């Protein structure tokens, strides 16, 4: 009996020791790993949506809590230490699932640029909208107060209306939460 007890104690001790050390390493590396993953995912988009900046928006990302469950990453762009704009994602529902759009907005609520980060649209059809520089440039200059609706202030790409609507939806949703985000970012 004592033998089995010893086995159980030793094994448990090992598992506990392992769990503690792993939890510690995990906490220490969590931020950095998230940074690396985000860098691969959105770095090109962040570069594309801001005209110019001299900091590392991804490293200086701010977590903004929208609701109890929704926390988004906001990437601040700075020039000489001053905040010039923020970028964050809006999501619209397209033909092949969620369309994630990164939107760069200046402090007055005007859109500086948008870039598609992730989508499942059909190549050759839906991608006519996701890759059209003309279509994406339409959003520049619009912002808080714009209608952002297809057919009214946004022209859809012919043959890719569903995707165009999805992208517009994503931008609209992002603009809608801009006041709250700006407040949290300060």
């Amino acid at each position, binding site marked *: 009996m004592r033998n089995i007890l010893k086995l159980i104690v*030793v094994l448990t001790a*090992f598992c506990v020791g*392992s769990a503690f*050390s792993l939890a510690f390493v*995990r906490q220490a*590396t969590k931020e950095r790993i998230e940074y690396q993953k985000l860098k*691969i995912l959105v770095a090109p988009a962040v570069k594309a949506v801001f005209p110019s900046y001299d900091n590392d928006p991804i490293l200086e990302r701010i977590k903004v809590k929208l609701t109890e469950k929704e926390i988004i990453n906001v990437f601040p762009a700075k020039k000489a230490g001053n905040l010039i704009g923020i970028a964050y994602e809006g999501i619209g529902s397209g033909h092949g699932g969620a369309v994630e759009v990164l939107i760069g907005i200046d402090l007055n609520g005007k859109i500086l640029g948008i870039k598609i980060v992730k989508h499942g649209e059909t190549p050759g059809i839906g991608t006519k909208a996701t890759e059209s520089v003309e279509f994406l440039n339409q959003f520049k200059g619009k912002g808080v107060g714009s209608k952002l609706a297809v057919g009214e202030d946004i022209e859809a790409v012919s043959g890719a209306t569903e995707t165009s609507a999805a992208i517009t939806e994503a931008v609209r949703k992002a603009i809608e939460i801009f006041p709250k985000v700006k407040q949290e970012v300060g």
Partner: protein
Amino acid sequence: MEGRLVKEFTKGLWEEIPPFRFVLGLCPTLACTTAVRDGIGMGLCLTFVLVCSNMLISLLRKVIPSQVRIPCFIVVVATFVIIVELVTQAYFYPLYMALGIFIPLIVVNCIPLGRAEAFASKNAVIYSLADGLGMGLGFTCSLTALAIFREIFGKGTLLYHHIMWSGFEPFAFLQKPPGAFVCLGLMLGIMNLIGSGEK
């Protein structure tokens, strides 16, 4: 004691070098040697796991009951593997992406578990350290040698810099899986030739 320490360390570098003499750890040898950076990276990750697990197991060898030694070894090795996995993910992300599932597969790599069973559980900490370091570095050297060959002739680059002349047609076969097997087999054969020549 000095002599023995040196002996335990150097045996991993030639006489018992994995994977050539000690046929262990073949999977990462074949999979992670398409580029020198990956070969060195994999070798160093394995060396870290090997040295740490060897030392910890040797430290606790009197405490681990024989019946549950294998699960204990597995927990120790797996813990260090996860630590290596998290650290590479945090600080060497391109390497982490290149090595893929082979970092967590270090846990079933015969080298850490094999050395734990055969050596660390029976020897003092300082010798286990030497053994782990020797084997790990030997493994790293083997991987690097294979990777140098495969990268230079298979891709024309070394550490991702182009070093071959511009008209060079890379021998793409070396970069593919069958090429890895053939390359390793030939290198092993040549090593055996050199080894038998020494006797």
